[in-house]
């Protein structure tokens, strides 16, 4: 039925086209309700479990809600206290920024490197792809964080290995200068997810381009810079945005490795960890809600900035390649 109109000659007069157009629109409207019926479990879920709680948390962020007493409206006090009178808030912001700035480029770099190696691999590719991807599936779990903690604790394998080569740094988990890198390493270890996306992107690049480049006398490095990087830039951008957003919300590994305290000496007290402590340990739910909203705004801003800068470095083949 619908094929009738698509098969209609493009040069057909408008009058003959308008009737089936209108009919189709009406039909579409009539046919939409089953779609909503089938969507309803998710729509209800989105409203009841996501949108409504978000609205409530926005309201609570202007109150002194503490779980026990009814909330009182206190205006912007949570926000002003956070920004002007809470040194730990700013320390947690700093810790989170440090983590994002180190972990995201490192993880993407390792992912891209691994993808480049796998691309040229012949038979073992499927195996290695799965093997490298596995940590991404496991990494968010409690058990891996516990293993990680054991590895980097005092007397763990890492301090043992380093000790064997003459570096006696002790456990990283108990060292405020190194603890954050335990979490960074755990994140980087999960490079499999961006790697798979990079690999897919690399396979999309036409071999013709490489062939043409090598005919022009370009070496491997030159090919990487002039062909791979620009052709892959949309994929890089996608991974960058995704990983940045995720990294701002790092919680589970830091929570498990530091026993929920963000220690030692607040060195792994990431934003979300501090938020959790304010809300669930100190029961300042209003304050925690305000923190959550500032985090949302901050992530939105960073994403916006990334999109703005992307105009100058992301190359879409469709735009001027035609």
């Amino acid at each position: 039925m619908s094929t009738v109109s698509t098969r209609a000659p493009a040069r057909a007069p408008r009058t003959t086209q308008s009737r089936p157009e209108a009919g189709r629109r009406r039909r579409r409207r009539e046919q939409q309700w089953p779609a909503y019926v089938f969507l309803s479990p998710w729509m209800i879920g989105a409203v009841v479990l996501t949108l409504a709680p978000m609205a409530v948390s926005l309201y609570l962020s202007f109150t002194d809600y503490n779980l026990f007493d009814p909330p009182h409206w206190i205006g912007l006090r949570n926000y002003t206290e956070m920004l002007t009178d809470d040194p730990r808030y700013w320390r947690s912001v700093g810790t989170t920024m440090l983590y994002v700035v180190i972990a995201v480029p490192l993880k993407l770099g390792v992912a891209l490197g691994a993808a480049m190696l796998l691309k040229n691999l012949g038979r073992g590719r499927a195996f290695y792809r799965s093997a490298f991807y596995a940590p991404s599936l496991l990494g968010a779990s409690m058990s891996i964080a516990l293993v990680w903690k054991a590895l980097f604790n005092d007397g763990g394998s890492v301090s043992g290995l380093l000790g064997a080569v003459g570096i006696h740094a002790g456990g990283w988990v108990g060292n405020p200068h190194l603890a954050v890198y335990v979490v960074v390493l755990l994140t980087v270890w999960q490079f499999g997810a961006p790697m798979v996306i990079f690999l897919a992107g690399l396979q999309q690049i036409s071999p013709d381009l490489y062939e043409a480049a090598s005919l022009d006398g370009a070496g491997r490095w030159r090919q990487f810079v002039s062909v791979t990087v620009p052709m892959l830039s949309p994929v890089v951008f996608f991974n960058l945005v995704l990983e940045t957003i995720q990294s701002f919300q790092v919680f589970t590994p830091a929570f498990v490795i530091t026993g929920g305290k963000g220690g030692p000496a607040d060195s792994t007290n990431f934003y979300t960890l501090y938020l959790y402590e304010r809300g669930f340990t100190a029961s300042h739910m209003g304050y925690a809600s305000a923190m959550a909203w500032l985090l949302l705004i901050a992530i939105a801003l960073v994403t916006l900035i990334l999109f703005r800068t992307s105009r100058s470095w992301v190359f879409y083949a469709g735009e001027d390649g035609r």
Partner: protein
Amino acid sequence: MPEPRSGGHRPPSRRAVLASAAVGLGAALTTTLTSCSTASGEAGGGGVSLTFSWWGNDDRAARTEKAVRLFEKEHPGITVRTSNADFGSYLQKLATQAAGGGIPDVVQLDYRQISQYAGSGAIMELTRPVADRTIRTSEIDEDFLRTGTYGGKLYAVPMGRGITGYAYDTRIYEKAGIPAPKPSWTWQEWAEDNRRIAALGLRSPDGRHVTGANDGAGNEDVFEDWLRSHGKQLYASQTRLGFTEDDLTDFWTFFDRLRRQGAVAAARDTSQAISTETSPIGRGLSAADYTWDAPFPAYTTLLGDSVRFAPVPTIDGKAGQYFKPSMLVGVGAHTAHPKEAAQLVDFLINDRRAGDILGFTRSTPPNRAIATRVAKTLKGAEREIYDYAVMMEKYGLSAPPTAPPRGDVAIDTAFGREYERVGYQLATPREAARELINAANRELRS
């Protein structure tokens, strides 16, 4: 639909499938409904159903269940539904239940929760059940009972009586020529002893320097003992601290110096100590560890009988320790059966047979008669902590403070965190003390 031809194999018709499905569903529904009605029938058969929740290990869970079953037997018509969890998740679950108005009828509470739960009306005031002797308090020490009050009124009854001390390794103390500590030993003597142990040059299993004790400066309990031995207290009221920046700076400087001298455990060992096994003494890194009496038996299990329990040092003989409720029990404010709930509370605290079943699973029972009775059956480490408590009681301790203010949960965590910054030399004792006092005042204001 026409009748199907008879004979031969044929696939079941659509209707047959539908019908059997309907029958199956119907059966399932009926079963569910029946089971529902049985459940409600039990509760509704003229009886009363109570809920009771607590935290604790498996041993405590088994003993508590047994005591509750005995209560049900003694009170036909009352059924008790119990639930328990580990401490951390229990606190969060209870806070959420309280926020939703669904707090259990009978509820085990931590000392630090009393002000919050009483102040916000989540638990019931117990004046009436105490007055009509539904809850008997005559065999509980008066000062000790007062720990369950808020605003001058009783809201919770202590379930166990705990006290602090140092678990110490007698072999190392003997090697250093230090006599068994007496209740009157001072912090200065303690510091000197720790230096002497450090000077022995002992090595831990992983080849590190053995110190005299753990670094307790990040523990609010140690500071409270220290303050009280100076005649001060943590909280002057529900909204005001009882100490100054100078008090805290002195305390932190005292420990900071000892840590730098290697007389108490290093910062990284303190921050990794979360259990008996990971404590400095548990790892063979120190000769002593500050702890409560209830967990003390775990040290002897781990390290052997050479570990004994010593008093916390004093200032010129004035002890700062006190008998603290290891946990308390209260009644949910919205309970439909306040009388029965109070009966269960009384049973858990005052019934002789319940006392025999529960034993020392919540530290020394608050009921004196029960404590003396149960103590006769104790052996080994449990016997030692009982004798220790008797000795400290004889030595003379000042009365416990009333329940700490509701901000104390947050202040307690801030305390450890701020000292950690001193331990890692990221802040001076005074800087950290100033920040702690600011944070504490913010908590007490809100």
